[in-house]
């Protein structure tokens, strides 16, 4: 909170550029009324006592009464998995508490029951933990985070956009079920925490694109304008950082040349035009980020694709990513004692140091790795379902050992693959 601008161009410590920057996220309990400055002092004291960490680390229990009473967790985040001395790095401490009210509706017309957008106050309890649960190729998440924070940083510094061109439109595309929408939500959550020193709160607006089409001919364009006027109201609050998510953006920006062939009603062209001009309008404000997702990229209007600065392809997870996804699933099941007794599974780095040599220690992890390799081609959404299917279809008992669960998962993956083949054959 008290930390100013935190960006790699601008070290927030005592100005020593060669120090590594480490982000510390402090999650304050929502019932706490403590002063942020006081929380910060206590967290710094805690970090001083435990200054050596191995990569990502999270404290949830404290030897300090004040922290136990007020703080849910203190986490060292987004660092390489290697030993790290916090005393030698500049610490950026982000203090936040979650908003647990659900989404509220934004209505376009007074009497309209259907809401045109859902609206969250960030950081939202609903989005908590999504960022950690998303597993992608090395660097995709960090890269996106850096992209957007640089864009906001430039706007913040009033860089003349006629000389240096950039905008804050992100387009994530890729096959279904790879977590594009989740990534948008997680990114917004992360940034609202990271930039809490600059903006006092974040807002997340998810547009229901279908609600923008009117039953009246030629009214759709106006609805889009109305929608963006609402968003404009939010942006006018300079203290707020606003994220606008347009999910499945192709429905709003379907290629206009398709309509020239006569397959698209002219009302739809107006919507595309309206969206494009409105986007240009709100883009000028420094405190707005537009996040869009799509899985049929070729259908999107070129003028829109051109406007998006960051076009990130989110593909199917690799074997490595799948291994990590499975690992997090198994951890959760062990925590809930569905898999019992608890057994330590090694992660890929540890397997690597052991040169993948089969032994008592590595046996289970190697089995998991084989399953992961077999699962390549499945989407993230399906992968997260596999442990459930394994339990539902192949478990004989409610509680089972890791060994038996792994073989159940093995069968579940085979089953999933067969299903997929059948579907493809039917088509």
């Amino acid at each position, binding site marked *: 909170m008290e930390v100013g601008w935190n960006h790699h161009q601008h070290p927030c410590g005592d100005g020593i550029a060669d120090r590594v920057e480490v982000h510390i996220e402090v999650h304050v309990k929502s019932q706490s*009324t403590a*002063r942020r400055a006081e929380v910060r002092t206590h967290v710094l004291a805690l970090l001083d006592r435990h200054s050596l960490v191995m990569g990502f680390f999270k404290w949830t229990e404290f030897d300090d009464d004040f922290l136990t009473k007020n703080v849910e967790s203190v986490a060292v985040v987004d660092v390489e998995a290697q030993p790290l001395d916090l005393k030698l790095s500049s610490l950026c401490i982000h203090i936040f508490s979650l908003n647990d*009210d659900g989404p509220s*509706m*934004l209505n376009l017309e*007074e009497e309209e029951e259907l809401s045109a957008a859902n*609206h969250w106050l960030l950081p939202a309890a609903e989005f908590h933990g999504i960022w950690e649960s998303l597993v992608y190729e090395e660097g995709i998440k960090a890269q996106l985070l850096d992209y957007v924070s640089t864009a906001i940083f430039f706007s913040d510094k009033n860089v003349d956009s006629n000389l240096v061109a950039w905008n804050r439109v992100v387009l994530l595309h890729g096959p279904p079920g790879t977590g594009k929408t989740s990534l948008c939500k997680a990114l917004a959550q992360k940034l609202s925490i990271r930039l809490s020193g600059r903006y006092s709160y974040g807002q997340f607006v998810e547009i229901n694109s279908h609600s923008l089409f009117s039953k009246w001919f030629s009214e759709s364009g106006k609805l889009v304008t109305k929608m963006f006027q609402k968003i404009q109201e*939010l942006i006018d609050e300079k203290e*707020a950082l606003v994220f606008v998510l347009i999910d499945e953006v192709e429905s709003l920006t379907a290629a206009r040349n398709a309509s020239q062939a006569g397959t698209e009603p002219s009302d739809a062209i107006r919507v595309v035009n309206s969206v494009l001009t409105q986007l240009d309008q709100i883009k000028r404000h420094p405190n707005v980020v537009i996040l869009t997702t799509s899985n049929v990229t070729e259908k999107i209007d070129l003028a829109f694709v051109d406007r998006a600065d960051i076009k990130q392809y989110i593909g199917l997870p690799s074997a490595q990513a799948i291994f990590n996804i499975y690992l997090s699933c198994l951890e959760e099941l062990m925590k809930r004692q569905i898999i019992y007794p608890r057994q330590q599974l090694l992660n890929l780095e540890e397997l690597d140091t052991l040169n993948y040599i089969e032994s008592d220690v590595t046996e289970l992890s190697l089995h998991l790795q084989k399953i992961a390799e077999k699962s390549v081609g499945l989407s993230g959404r399906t992968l997260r379902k596999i442990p459930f299917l394994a339990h539902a279809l192949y478990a004989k008992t409610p509680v089972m050992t890791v060994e038996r669960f792994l073989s159940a998962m093995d069968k579940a993956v085979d089953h999933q693959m067969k299903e997929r083949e059948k579907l493809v054959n039917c088509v």
Partner: protein
Amino acid sequence: MGEEGLGKEGELNKFMTVVTKPDSRVEIQADGQTEGRDGETESSGGLCPNLPVNTAAFTAAGHEDASQTAANISEETLHGEDVKENRDSTEDAESQQDKSSQLGHMSGQQESDSRQVSVQQPVCDDDNDEEIMRRAREEGRVDVVFPGCVTQDGCCRFVCELLKCVLYQRQQLPMTYDQMVFFQKQQLATTQLEEGAVRKSIRPSGDSTWQRCQRTLRDLDEVLGHLEVLFSLSYVPRVLFILGSSGILPTELYEINMEALVQGGSDRSLRTSQCLRRLFRTLFVADLLSDVKPVRLMGTTIMALAHRDCGVEWFKPKVDYRVPKRGKRQVISLASAASGSGQAKADARDWDDYIWFQTPVTIKGFCK
């Protein structure tokens, strides 16, 4: 004013009816002051004679009408008192000169009261009414100045009564809070009477309406109860009523600002009933809450500024909350006339220690 006005007056009277009892205690405590205080009531009645006359007339007619067959005895007695009180004040209105000469004979202890009267006088001027209306219309702001200090308890009552009033006038409740409580009691009584008979037929117009009515009332009662707790734990300088889907982008926002109120002990403060009367009179003159257009049903959230260490549990602390600047915002500001009565001024406090607390429930509006 048409029928709308009639409703208002009736409502106003009910507020006063409720307050009558606890205040009698104060009168007994400070016996010597009773006369002076009465004088003050008279003066407020006398200076704006049209209001109490109307009120008295409306209560007599309007109330019998509203409560219809089932008005019980205790209510009637309370009413009788109230009407009488009002009639007294109107009679006295005619002899305003007498009263001021009476004031001249007051003892030293009563002097503060007479000074209060003098503070009061300009407030009821016609010019002033116009000024109040203009302010309400152009700035969305109503200033109410009380001629002395008030109790913390009184502040809580102002907020609670204003909440009930806002909900009714902004069309989130189909009738006033007191009428709703009354109807609910009546409904429960009939249900209990005909216990054993077919239950479903007794319920009025469909189960869902009845349930929604009960739910709204339950939520509102809960909020009112917890507001009392909050006021007993901490000094509360500001309260917000947020109507609309979210706290960040409200459709309507009403702020009760009590920063300029001087709080005092119960023996040195003004009677809450008088203050309420003054408050609602100004509010009706300002015509802040009425709207010709029908208002959509929305949820109402209440935010209150209180000390961070007050230890209130039910409310959710919002350390980073900022009052939204957009949307329709109206301020009802309560103040004590600068009297130098030796009370610590509110601005001496450390505002940094005051944070916003939000009610965890939203009161959902409903109509019949």
